């Protein structure tokens, strides 16, 4: 994985949310922390072209998110903070199969891939369930399964543990550790950051600290608490 931010600035609603950001990300596990409204979510939205920079360029494995957005999105799987925003179909299998529509032309193989993704997370029994009958934790796992089914090369998680109880949060942490893909995780869950190779601290739209988890967490607690 190689994600490059070249002098990236982002403005939203006439406010600079990211300012002149220069970064090269190549580690297997990268954490992003920072206060609310610091620009963390904007940073990760740039990676799959959900947000485009006003100035500068974001490249994912050599592809410019502004020019090759479709190719970039095929490579980057995005797990949203709120699974209700991500799950657009009423049945679990329908939702996962929908994400595979442009990737797997054979409907039978789509069904198998959807089932396999759910089994992988230990929630294969939810296939025929209506999304509205699932608990918050189950929905989060279904949203993750929908992304994993597309077999992305890079995974981006935007505050994945916010809605999970302790048991499901620990389960998610174990799943995250077992994923073969490189992953970027934005979170306020500082304990989750210990399994990262690199942690970025974003504050007021700028990269405030960049280092190994222990140092980054210490810096964050000293400066942003």
């Amino acid at each position: 994985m190689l994600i490059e931010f070249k002098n990236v600035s982002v403005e939203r609603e006439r406010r600079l949310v990211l300012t002149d950001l220069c970064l090269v990300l190549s580690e297997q596990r990268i954490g992003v922390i920072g206060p609310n409204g610091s620009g963390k979510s904007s940073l990760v939205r740039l990676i799959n072209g959900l947000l485009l920079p006003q100035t500068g360029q974001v490249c994912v494995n050599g592809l410019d998110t502004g020019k090759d957005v479709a190719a970039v999105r095929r490579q980057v799987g995005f797990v949203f903070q709120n699974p209700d925003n991500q799950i657009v179909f009423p049945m679990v299998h329908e939702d996962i199969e929908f994400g595979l529509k442009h990737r797997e032309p054979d409907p039978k193989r789509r069904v198998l891939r959807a089932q396999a993704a759910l089994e992988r997370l230990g929630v294969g029994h939810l296939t025929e369930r209506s999304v509205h009958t699932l608990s918050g934790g189950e929905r989060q796992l279904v949203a993750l399964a929908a992304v994993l089914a597309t077999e992305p090369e890079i995974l981006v998680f935007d505050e994945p543990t916010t809605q999970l109880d302790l048991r499901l949060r620990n389960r998610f942490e174990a799943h995250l550790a077992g994923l073969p893909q490189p992953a970027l995780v934005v979170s306020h869950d500082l304990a989750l950051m210990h399994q990262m190779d690199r942690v970025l601290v974003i504050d007021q739209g700028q990269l405030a600290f960049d280092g190994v988890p222990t140092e980054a967490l210490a810096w964050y607690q000293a400066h942003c608490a």
Partner: protein
Amino acid sequence: MVYQLRRWPGIKRIARDGPLTPTTQDSYRKMLGSLYLPSGTWLHLAPAGLKLAVLALSSTALMWVHSPLLLLLTCLLVCLLVRCAGASLQQVWRQLRPLVWLLLTLGALSAWSQGVLQALEMVLRLFTLVLAALVVSMTTPLTQMMQVVVWLLGPFERLGWVDAEKVALGFGLTLRLIPELGVQWQDIREAQLARGLTPSPLTMGVPMLLRTLRRADEIAEAIDARG
């Protein structure tokens, strides 16, 4: 406390009915969230196109039926289909409950202006139509309905007039989100009751509009993210 209960009817209602516990809220969500009932009945196995065609034809035909007895028989037949779809009476009642007042009001107006027989005819016809549509919704997954739309628009797509997949997705999302608006309405209502406010069309309408627009943005973003 007594003063508060008198002053705020919303609180009075909560005090009378008991607090809205998470279980109550969940059951509201389940009730409003989705119409499809997963099952393996013959109605579920029937092709979606056939079900929609029968619904369209029978609904049109029903407009020409003016005999209350025949309408009653049709209504009973559709009730039988509801049972065949595997739905319990409770599930059907939950879906139809919001319509009962509308039907009663329309029936009363019709009885006043046109006579009792005409009113009975109209109420029976509307009730049967709604019930028939409910049978189709309860037994047909959204993706199958979308496939029917893609098939129907196929000739227009070949002429280059429409993108059938996009129209089908729009149709599917609309169907999917109609029940969700009910959940949203419930959430806003509860939030206002919890603050001691009495929900009114104005106080409900503005947050409802804002939330709906935000939800539309979020769903568009989620679809974009999936490539």
